[in-house]
Structures are given as structure tokens and as C-alpha cells.
């Protein structure tokens, strides 16, 4: 065979036949690898960002000193490490002034991720620092200055050691949420601990090892470490440190994976459309070559190797394009990126290449393979029908391939299934609906005016082809709507969780006598607070009459534990009842309501009896309900709630949370002076960090949405293009017969707009179904119907497809009919 594939490819390329197919492939590879690279780099960056909340990549904690060999091993592995020790202690300023404080001693390397902040005066302007105080110095919580009546430069005593007060400690990256029962912060150097002599065997202390390094080394190290953990030693993960952040990141990740999966599907559809058009245009071509003596084997070899060459070319160009897309994203995004995005590795490009090969094999090859069977008789009779009967089989093959690709890409079969369900609904229901509706047009259409008649006649004549096209349009629109819906509900939910005036300060330890004066003080400053919740500390002793084990140094699992609880006659705001019933106000029964995860950990269900020790009294209660809490709300939340009458006799303190703007921080100085026993916990920096992350994730999601919209738009263009040949030809004949420009364009507009309308309608129905499945199973969000999507889907479908159709066929009215007829 002396006619080689390269030669044919070069000739075809010159002839402009390959353009559409190559474009589709290059875009497919480009979009898939670009989005995938962007996503993995972004995930990388966000993960790093989330590590700030641990101040490290991995943290191990224990109430006893941790083995020094771990540090030696980490040095060998090339990791950084830092040590912290946290314990409660009295802090003295002179003989008489003292306060209980939560002391944290940190080594020089701390924090490994993120930064410490301090200010040179209490509640003053915040400065960032890479390391804590040097030996001999301490940083004090802002409100300790008032409590101890000291200023910068004074000395304080912890145990047997005396320190110079160097700054006000403001925030630590790993502040976390375990503030109950601790006093205000004192930050000191790790090497000063022996001098204080306060840490004795049996002291209530928490040792931590912090490690950071390259993610592969960290993973190896963690794997090495985990089997060696003993009772009381545990690894702390980001999920535990900041459940809110990790939840947001998980959903963002699901969204990005969804977007990437949709890119894969869109790419497949685009390639399928382009290949179909390519093969249709080549039927005559093949007939001629066959009449000149080419066998079907020759034809298959020619087109097969051309396709392979084309695939290689398109893959390389596509990967470059993908690299460009993600680089452009990060360039546009640079201002909003606090952390350097990590490398993406080769996986995104491998995904792009595999997508390209799969698309070629499952979408492009079947129609081209049939070219080999094309009858040479077409050289005499051009009106022979095209061999397109097995298209359904091809689509089934393609669908299977796409499913596998999507599954491989997202590693989430629920997500894959949700998308598939939408696609299947669009395809199945859509095809029937489109066929009936488009056929129904015949009855209504015949008596209609001229333009309508032309359009409806066109719609009917190409009934099957049009129905297929409607389904393809609907699929593309569905995926875009789906992404838009998920994006909107995600961002809405995040915004709702942390509105601008979300509480960012907590106040605990409020004596009953202080409640009213504090309410008044807040009112005077125009500060709105959450309700004041009573707080009682007790010990959970038994479940179903059986005593729980006493293992205080194990955090997880069933054990007796000290716990804070509250009372209320009404279900607290934001709480959701999952099981059982809320009690009647004023009930005197011994009931309790438990938080869902807590109940799960303890293995308690509605109707069980639970025993508590409050003060010196034993309290036997029955579990009345299980609640779900929103831990991200920054409002007071409690694992356990009792009816008020049950706890009325016990002494309680109160707590609340409120929003304080950064400009009003000086209020706290006055406040802690007036109410020295009250503990104020500043969460504003943490809230701000969470908000920053969420804003970044939202921006990323919007950006990805735009790219997918563009990809979807291209599929629509390809879909319209696929049907242009026949329409242009017909319109040219009509023009030659004297039809006016207005009639032809009007007819085309109505024809395409009608298809767009049907596609929009189908897409909306299917998108709602997919989003329902996605949100309820994958994202674990509440599904709410979105009425605005209906007009949007239908109008957008009508307008976009109508406009694209007319635009693609515009040549028929601008070029002389003879020229158009001659080319076809």
C-alpha cells in the first residue's frame, strides 16, 4: 500500500475536513487535563491551607511524654518537627494577683504551618510571627493584662520561674476548639518548662509532636508511626481539628470532581458529533476510492491509522492546551491564593490522554469503521442511504466507556451514577418525547403561516436526526444546569453558615448574677448576642444501668467523661431532630436529648437510660431524642440538653456568643476589667480564616463553572454544525427557487429554537433529578427545589440554540446559492 496514512491525513488536513474532529479532540484533552490539573493543584493548595489549622501536617498528642525516637526518625526522613506542651496553671503577678491560665509551651520551630500573631498592647494591632517567645519571656492573653494588672515589660511567675511579659498573645494556627475549662492563654518557650517545675507525673497536660514535610515523606512517616501508637497517643487530623473547613473542602472536592467528570462526558459527546459528521462527509469519498479499487481493508487501515496519528497529535496539543488552561487560571487567580499551589504531577495529563484515546476508540472509530462497508455504488447513486443503522450500539459502547472514565476520574460511583441517571433520563425519555412532539408538529403546522410551515416541515422531515440532536443539546444543557445548581446551593449554604455578622467571640463562665449586667453592657455597645445558655458540668457514668469504663486518657469510645450540658424547653435554633420527640415545655420527667455523633460514639439510642453525676447527686435519665448540630454556626452548641426543671436545683454558669467587629475590639479591655471572672474567647481570627478559605473555594468553583460552560457551549456548536450541511443545502435550493432571506432565516430560527426549547425542558427535568441524587447522597446537603432553573433552562435553550443555528447557517443567505450547491 503506497498511499500512506500520513499522506492522506496531510491531504485531508489541507482540505479542511479534519478541522472539526481535531478541534473537538484537542478541546476534549485540553479541558479534561486542564481542569484536572487545576483541581489537583487547587486541592493541594487548599490542603496545605487546611494544615495551617494544625500548625503542621501531622500531629500526635498524648497526656504523657512522647518517644524521642519518633523525632530522630523524622529527622532521618527529612521532616521538620516542633514540640508543644499545654497545661493549666496559676499565673502570679506579685503576691496577691493571680489567675488560672492555660499555659502553652512551644519549641522554636513552632508553628510549622501558618503563623502566630501577637500585639504590642492588649487587643492592639495584630502582628504575625514565625516563632513564639524566646526563653525567659512570655506572651499573655489580652485579658490577662487586666486580670493580673500588668503591662508589657512587667514580670509574671509560673510555678517557680519568673518571666518578662513581652507581648499580648493573639492567635495560634492550631487554636482549635477545645477551650472549655481552660483559662486565658500564656505562651512560653518549651525549654523553660523544667524551670517552672509545675509539670509533675499525673498533671493534666497535653504533649504534642508536630511534623511537616513533603507529602510523600509525611505519608510514609505516618504509616510508620501509626502501628506504634499506644493507649492515650493519637494522631490528630485536619478533619478533627476543624470539622467546618474539612466539610467545605470535601464538598468543594466533590464539585470539582463533578465538573471534571462532566468535562469528560462533554468531550465524548463533542468527539462523537465531530466524528459522525466527518464520516458522513466521507461516504462519497470512500465510494470513489472503492470504485478505483480500494478494498474495505485498505479503507479501514487508512482511516484507522489516520485516526491514531490524529489522536496522538491531538493528545499532545491538548495536553499543552490543558497546561495552558490551568496556568491561566492560576495566573488570574494569583491575588486570591495565599499559598503556593503544589505541582499537579502527570496524572491529569494521563487522564487527558486516556480520555482522548477512549473518545477516539468508542466515539470516533465506530462511524469511521463503517466507512469501510460503504457501497461503491454511491458513485452512481448519491441518494443511497448512509449506513448509520448501528448508531444506537455505538452510543451504548460510548456510554459504557464514559461511565468507566468518569468513575476512574472521580473514584466515586455515587457521583458517576447521579450524572448517569440524568443522562439516561435525558436520552430515554427525551428521545420519545422529542419524537412525539416533533411529529405532533405536523398536525398543528400545516395550516400555519409560511415561515412556520417551512420550519415545521424541516423538523418533521429530519424527525429522528432532530430528536437525536435535541437529546444531545439537552445533555449538554443538563450538565451545565446541574453544575450551576450545585454551585449555587454550595455557595449559598456556605454564605448562610458564616454571614458577615456571624458570632466570632464566645463568653463563658458567666455567673447567674452577671447575666443581666452583661446583657445591659452589650446592649449599651449595640452588640447583639445569641441567647445566654446555662451550662452545668457533670460526669456521665452509666448507660442502661451498666457503669461505663474509667479510662480518662483515651479520648475516643465509651468511657466515663466530664461534660458540659445545658437545659432548654425548646429545641435550640439550628438543631435538627433526627429521632425521638422534643419534650413538652415544663415537663418534670427525667429526660435528655443527645447529639447524633456523640450518641453514636457511646452507642446510645432513643429510649435508653443514661446515668449522670452532677455535683454529688446521681441523675438517671431516659433519652428522649437525638439531635443534629451545625458545628460551623459559631453559636453555643451542646452534646446534651435536659429539661429545665430537672437541673433547676444545680448551680449553673452561663455562656453566649456574639459578633464584634475588628474596630470595636477595645470594648473587650473595658469588659474584662468590669467582669473579671468571665472568660472571653476570641474566635474572630479563626472565623476570618474559615471565611477566607470558603471565599477561595467559591472563587475556584465559579472559575471552573465558567470553563465548563465554555466546553458545553462548544458541544452545542458542534451539535448545530453537525446538522448544518443538510440544512444549508436545502436552504440554498429554496433560495435558488426565489425564497427570501427573511423566510429562510426565519424558518431556520424557528426550527432550531423549537429544538432548543425541547432540549431546555428535558435538560431542566434531568438536571433536577441528578442534583437531587447528588445532593442527597454525595454532598450530604439538603435538597431544595429550585424553581428559577425552569425558565432559565428553557429560555436559555431556545435562545442559544436558535441563535447558534441561524449563525451557523448564515452563509446560505450571504453566499450565492450556486456556490453553496456546488460545494455540497
Amino acid at each position, binding site marked *: 500500500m503506497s498511499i500512506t496514512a500520513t499522506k492522506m491525513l496531510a491531504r485531508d488536513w489541507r482540505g*479542511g475536513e479534519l478541522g472539526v474532529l481535531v478541534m473537538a479532540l484537542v478541546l476534549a484533552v485540553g479541558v479534561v487535563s486542564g481542569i484536572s490539573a487545576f483541581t489537583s493543584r487547587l486541592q493541594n493548595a487548599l490542603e496545605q491551607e487546611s494544615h495551617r489549622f494544625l500548625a503542621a501536617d501531622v500531629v500526635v498528642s498524648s497526656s504523657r511524654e512522647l518517644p524521642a525516637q519518633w523525632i530522630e526518625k523524622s529527622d532521618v526522613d527529612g521532616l521538620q518537627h516542633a514540640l508543644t506542651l499545654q497545661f493549666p496553671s496559676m499565673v502570679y503577678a506579685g503576691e496577691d494577683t493571680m489567675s488560672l491560665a492555660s499555659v502553652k509551651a512551644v519549641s522554636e520551630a513552632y508553628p510549622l504551618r501558618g503563623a502566630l500573631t501577637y500585639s504590642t498592647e492588649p487587643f492592639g494591632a495584630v502582628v504575625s510571627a514565625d516563632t513564639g517567645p524566646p526563653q525567659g519571656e512570655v506572651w499573655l492573653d489580652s485579658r490577662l493584662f487586666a486580670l493580673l494588672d500588668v503591662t508589657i515589660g512587667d514580670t509574671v511567675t509560673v510555678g517557680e520561674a519568673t518571666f518578662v511579659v513581652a507581648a499580648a498573645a493573639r492567635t495560634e494556627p492550631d487554636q482549635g476548639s477545645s477551650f472549655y475549662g481552660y483559662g486565658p492563654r500564656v505562651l512560653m518557650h518549651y525549654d523553660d518548662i523544667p524551670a517552672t517545675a509545675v509539670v509533675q507525673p499525673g498533671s493534666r497536660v497535653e504533649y504534642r509532636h508536630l511534623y511537616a514535610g513533603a507529602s510523600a515523606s509525611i505519608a510514609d512517616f505516618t504509616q510508620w508511626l501509626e502501628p506504634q501508637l499506644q493507649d492515650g497517643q493519637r494522631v490528630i487530623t485536619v478533619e478533627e481539628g476543624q470539622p467546618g473547613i474539612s466539610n467545605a473542602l470535601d464538598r468543594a472536592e466533590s464539585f470539582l470532581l463533578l465538573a471534571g467528570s462532566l468535562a469528560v462526558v462533554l468531550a465524548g459527546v463533542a468527539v462523537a458529533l465531530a466524528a459522525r459528521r466527518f464520516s458522513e462527509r466521507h461516504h462519497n469519498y470512500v465510494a470513489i476510492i472503492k470504485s478505483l479499487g480500494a478494498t474495505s481493508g485498505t479503507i479501514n487501515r487508512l482511516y484507522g491509522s489516520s485516526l491514531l496519528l490524529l489522536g496522538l497529535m491531538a493528545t499532545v496539543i491538548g495536553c499543552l492546551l490543558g497546561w495552558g488552561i490551568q496556568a491561566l487560571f492560576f495566573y488570574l487567580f494569583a491575588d486570591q491564593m495565599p499559598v503556593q499551589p503544589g505541582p499537579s504531577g502527570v496524572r491529569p495529563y494521563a487522564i487527558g490522554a486516556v480520555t482522548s484515546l477512549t473518545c477516539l476508540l468508542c466515539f470516533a472509530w465506530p462511524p469511521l469503521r463503517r466507512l469501510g462497508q460503504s457501497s461503491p*455504488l454511491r458513485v452512481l447513486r448519491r441518494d443511497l442511504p448512509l449506513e448509520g443503522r448501528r448508531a444506537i450500539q455505538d452510543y451504548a459502547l460510548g456510554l459504557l466507556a464514559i461511565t468507566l472514565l468518569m468513575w476512574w476520574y472521580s473514584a466515586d460511583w455515587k457521583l458517576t451514577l447521579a450524572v448517569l441517571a440524568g443522562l439516561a433520563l435525558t436520552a430515554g425519555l427525551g428521545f420519545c418525547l422529542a419524537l412525539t412532539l416533533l411529529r405532533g408538529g405536523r398536525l398543528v403546522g400545516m395550516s400555519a403561516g409560511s415561515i412556520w410551515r417551512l420550519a415545521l416541515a424541516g423538523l418533521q422531515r429530519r424527525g429522528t436526526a432532530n430528536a437525536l440532536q435535541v437529546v444531545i443539546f439537552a445533555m449538554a444543557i443538563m450538565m451545565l444546569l446541574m453544575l450551576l445548581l450545585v454551585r449555587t446551593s454550595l455557595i449559598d449554604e456556605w454564605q448562610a453558615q458564616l454571614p458577615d455578622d456571624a458570632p466570632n467571640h464566645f463568653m463563658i463562665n458567666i455567673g447567674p448574677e452577671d447575666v443581666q449586667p452583661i446583657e445591659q453592657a452589650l446592649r449599651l455597645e449595640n452588640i447583639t448576642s445569641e441567647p445566654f445558655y446555662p451550662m452545668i458540668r457533670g460526669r456521665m457514668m452509666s448507660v442502661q444501668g451498666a457503669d461505663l469504663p474509667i479510662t480518662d486518657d483515651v479520648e475516643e469510645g465509651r468511657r466515663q467523661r466530664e461534660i458540659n450540658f445545658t437545659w432548654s424547653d425548646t429545641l435550640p435554633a439550628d438543631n435538627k431532630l433526627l429521632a425521638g420527640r422534643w419534650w413538652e415545655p415544663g415537663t418534670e420527667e427525667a429526660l435528655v436529648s443527645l447529639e447524633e455523633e456523640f450518641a453514636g460514639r457511646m452507642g446510645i439510642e432513643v429510649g435508653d437510660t443514661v446515668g449522670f453525676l452532677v455535683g454529688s447527686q446521681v441523675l438517671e435519665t431516659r433519652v428522649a431524642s437525638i439531635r443534629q448540630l451545625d458545628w460551623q454556626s459559631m453559636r453555643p452548641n451542646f452534646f446534651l440538653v435536659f429539661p429545665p426543671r430537672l437541673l433547676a436545683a444545680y448551680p449553673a454558669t452561663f455562656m453566649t456568643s456574639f459578633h464584634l467587629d475588628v474596630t470595636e475590639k477595645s470594648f473587650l479591655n473595658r469588659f474584662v476589667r468590669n467582669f473579671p471572672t468571665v472568660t472571653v474567647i476570641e474566635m474572630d481570627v479563626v472565623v476570618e480564616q474559615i471565611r477566607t478559605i470558603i471565599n477561595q473555594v467559591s472563587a475556584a468553583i465559579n472559575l471552573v463553572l465558567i470553563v465548563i460552560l465554555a466546553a458545553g457551549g462548544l458541544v452545542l456548536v458542534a451539535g448545530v454544525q453537525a446538522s448544518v450541511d443538510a440544512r444549508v443545502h436545502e436552504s440554498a435550493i429554496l433560495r435558488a427557487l426565489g425564497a427570501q432571506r427573511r423566510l429562510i432565516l426565519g424558518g431556520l430560527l424557528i426550527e432550531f429554537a423549537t429544538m432548543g426549547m425541547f432540549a431546555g425542558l428535558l435538560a431542566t427535568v434531568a438536571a433536577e433529578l441528578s442534583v437531587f441524587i447528588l445532593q442527597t447522597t454525595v454532598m450530604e446537603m439538603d435538597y431544595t427545589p429550585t424553581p428559577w432553573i425552569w425558565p432559565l433552562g428553557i429560555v436559555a435553550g431556545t435562545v442559544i440554540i436558535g441563535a447558534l443555528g441561524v449563525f451557523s447557517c448564515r452563509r446560505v443567505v450571504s453566499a450565492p446559492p450556486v456556490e453553496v450547491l456546488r460545494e455540497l
Partner: protein
Amino acid sequence: MAGSELEILKGITLEIKSGESVAIIGASGSGKSTLLGLLAGLDEATAGSVTINDTDLGALDEDGRALFRGQHVGFVFQSFQLLPALTALENVMLPLELQGQSKAQEQAGHFLQRVGLGARTGHYPLQLSGGEQQRVALARAFASKPSILFADEPTGNLDKTTGDHIIDLLFELNREEGTTLVLVTHDHSLADRCQRRLRLDGGALVQE
């Protein structure tokens, strides 16, 4: 067609000698193109047989017929059937390349020269007039040195003067190459230039 069979050609027995030129005439729809398709091995007959140079075409499958066409058969079509993506030269080279001939370009160039298009070898079909396109088609048909040439209304898409030139060229080349010619037309003056004329009427063949 939906259960009922349509008989297009009825009881045709026809023998064409090597080197002979035969015209098949008939009105539109008389079955001319169907007969041509069968004779040239482009189509399969439901009954009967076609034998060219002792080869029974009915015994070959489509691939076998394709190889046979490549070696023994040439075509000239009413609508030229040039590949739009290929230049004139490449169009003529195509059958030679399919046969794996090493001097395809030389030979194609020679035949383009012969039909008077030596200066336009690099042009694409769209850049050529109808007459020029048909001349490229002639060059392509003769370049592979077929033993039998089928021409389907070769002047059907051309004006009278151009058509006459093409026909002169066709017969000249036919004589030079000693090719058997089967020509389908409804143009009697064209048919008159063949040694033998056959008329198709309602699917049956009538000797004129």
C-alpha cells in the same frame, strides 16, 4: 421496498468483445445506471452473472470486486467524482497509489499532460471548470491502464462545446490505449460514435 420486489432489469444477455465500444441508451429510469453498476462490479445482481476477462464477478465478494476494479476497470462519471481535498495530480495518482505503483506521480503527470492540464496539476477540483474536472477524471480513468472503461453520461453536466471536446478526448484515448468502452448516455449523437448501440426500454435490452 416494503415487501414487494421491484424488477429493474429483465432477461438481459449481453456480450461485449475486447476493444469494442458499446453505447447503452435509454430514457431516465430505464435502468441504465443499474446495468452499469452491475457490469462494472459496483453492485451485486440478485440473479444472473457478469463475467469480465473470464472472471465471474458474482463469485467475488465486495473486496474481491474492488481489487478487480482496481486492476481492470476505469470509470468516468457524470458528476466527475473527484475528491475535493486532493489536487488534480493527486486525484489521478490515487488509483495508481492504491495499486501500489511506484511511478504513480510520473504516470499521473503524463496523463494530465495528455488531457491538456499539464499546467494545472496543483489545482483543486473547485478551482477547475466543469470541463477541466472531467478531463482530470479522464486522466484518472486511463492512468491505471484499465482493460474496460465505463462512462456514465460523461457529458451530462457539461455544455455542448465542452462536452464535444471531452468526447473527442475520450475516444482518442480509448483508441490509443485499446480499451473496451461501455458508455451509458441518452444522447444519440454521442451513442452514434460507438461501434454498437443498445437501447434499454423498461428494463429490457433492445438491439438498435
